[in-house]
């Protein structure tokens, strides 16, 4: 493996880990944060008929999960291209 490719790979992997860290923090915050740890505090806020904590636990976290994966797909495709690791 050439030195250039090796450096390229390490930089690519580092950026990949950064993307993961950011997205998984959001993943944790909406489910374990809003849906479990702070659910009772959020329940004091009402949005329509939903107590907010209850809404995150049964609805909001799932919507966020779906969005997170599509954002990940978009970011990774961009990253693959930037480092020229994308598939032909």
């Amino acid at each position: 493996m050439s030195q250039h490719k090796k450096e390229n790979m390490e930089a690519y992997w580092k950026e990949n880990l950064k993307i993961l860290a950011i997205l998984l923090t959001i993943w944790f915050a909406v489910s374990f944060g809003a849906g479990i740890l702070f659910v009772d505090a959020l329940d004091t806020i009402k949005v329509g008929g939903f107590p907010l904590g209850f809404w995150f636990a049964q609805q909001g976290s799932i919507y966020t999960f779906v969005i997170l994966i599509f954002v990940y797909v978009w970011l990774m495709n961009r990253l693959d291209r930037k480092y020229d690791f994308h598939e032909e």
Partner: protein
Amino acid sequence: MDTQTLIYMFVGASFALYIGIAIWSRAGSTSEYYVASGGVHPIANGMATGADWMSAASFISMAGIISFVGRDGAVYLMGWTGGYVLLAMCLAPYLRKFGKFTVPEFVGERYYSQTARVVAVICVIFISFTYVAGQMRGVGIVFSRYLEVDINTGVFIGMAIVFVYAVLGGMKGITYTQVAQYCVMIFAYMIPAIYISIMMTGNPIPQIGFGSTVSGSDVYLLDKLNGLSQELGFSQYTSGTKSTVDVFFITVALMVGTAGLPHVIVRFFTVPKVSDARLSAGYALLFIAILYTTAPAVASFARVNLIETVSNAEYQKLPTWFANWEKSGLIAWQDKNGDGKIQYVAGAPFNGAPAFAEGDVRGNSGERVVTNESTANGNELYVDRDIMVLANPEIAQLPGWVIALIAAGGLAAALSTAAGLLLVISTSISHDLLKSNLAPNINEKQELLAARLAAAAAIMVAGYFGINPPGFVAQVVAFAFGLAAASFFPAILMGIFNKKMNKEGAIAGMLVGLIFTFAYIVYFKFVNPAANTPDNWLFGVSPEGIGTFGMILNFVVSYAVSKVTPPPPEHIQHLVDDIRIPRGAGAPVADH
């Protein structure tokens, strides 16, 4: 046309469709049989993953469980969807780049060890059989209620159908059948939900409907439900009763377990490219989320409907669905105070499932007589949770074809998951045990034959469990997730993200995680069930959530052991480098 004829038509048409697809897409090579030659479109794979994942439990039982436990039901909603985020970001693309047929194959190759591979095969077989037994039972129950055949006959018909398309078509057949099954089940789930949402709140979108006001009043549906629940002595619907620690651990175990289930992971081996594996995970979760965000809405609608219909109602004036489901034993009423009216309040009416008197013995109001000894509380009604989805269209007085659709949907859910699991079992036997260990000299044709024979044998065993369900089926489901969380997930994750993880670390970690989780569940579920209370649990974590602990132990032990043992050989470190970048993913190939 009467409802029964409609049910026969819908179920018959859906079965004909599945068999037609199986014949059209039968597999001719091991690559087609194991991973559909890696040529499945990401959207099709997303639908297939949805059907593969959403079992009889998701379709029939989940809304019912939520209905009875309220907010705590969120552990299933978040647990069974959040895992896809982990799968999409941490496992699927890399395993696709690795480009082999099975999960044990990755474990064996990454940890350069046949021992690791065999440990993985044993886990795969155990997890998958645990799961498949429940599916066959689900098929039997749907058949017996809707097609009025014996449960055992129902299981046989289900076995025959799965046999045709799993044995003939392999992964290729299963994939396209699952796409059809996803469409059937999502229609079957959504149509009654939309109907009921319009009826109860005037809003056609159930996800919004259950946060809206009840039609013709300005009271929010959830407030009304909280009020009704409290009036009858239940806890508030929108607040929880489980401890925060336990909810947290169960959710982690379910999420991580989901990401580690072999029949789900293997679906991502079937798409052409690494970027498709990522995209496909997004579609899979989107398709799953449609049902999973509707389920809690259905749960609250059904709960309000049930309470309003039965509470203090005279038995003789109840709608006909009550007697129908009483006949199949999912509802039972014991008129404790002899007033002919149903008192439905908190507490179990009697201990255990209802035991009906021999023959068709009827009580004073015409109800089926239950021989269980009454409990001291005032509750007279036994309701099986499954009824919340199965009987929902009848409770809401929907037309006959909607009921027929539910029957076809329930069968689609159970059959699609059963087929996916059976394929994983047969693949581990023919590819990971036979070809790589016991009989490496067999040619491709013989391996394909072995895979088909293994699938056929697995169907027989699954059918046996469907007909003679071990009493512990419901309890062992905790096993499947706990073990997947404590074994596969850490091993695969470290295999990708930690280049220095070696065979000694991975095997030690898997064994410690497995044995700890296994022992904890066995102790509280089988050896000493009486001690299964929060006071005795380790840090207040129930057996359902203990897989999280097993996973942490696995990580810690693996890391510690890998620090004091030799690092993996050079070529393994290169393998890890290679799977980290997308370019160069070919169609999956065998390693021999």
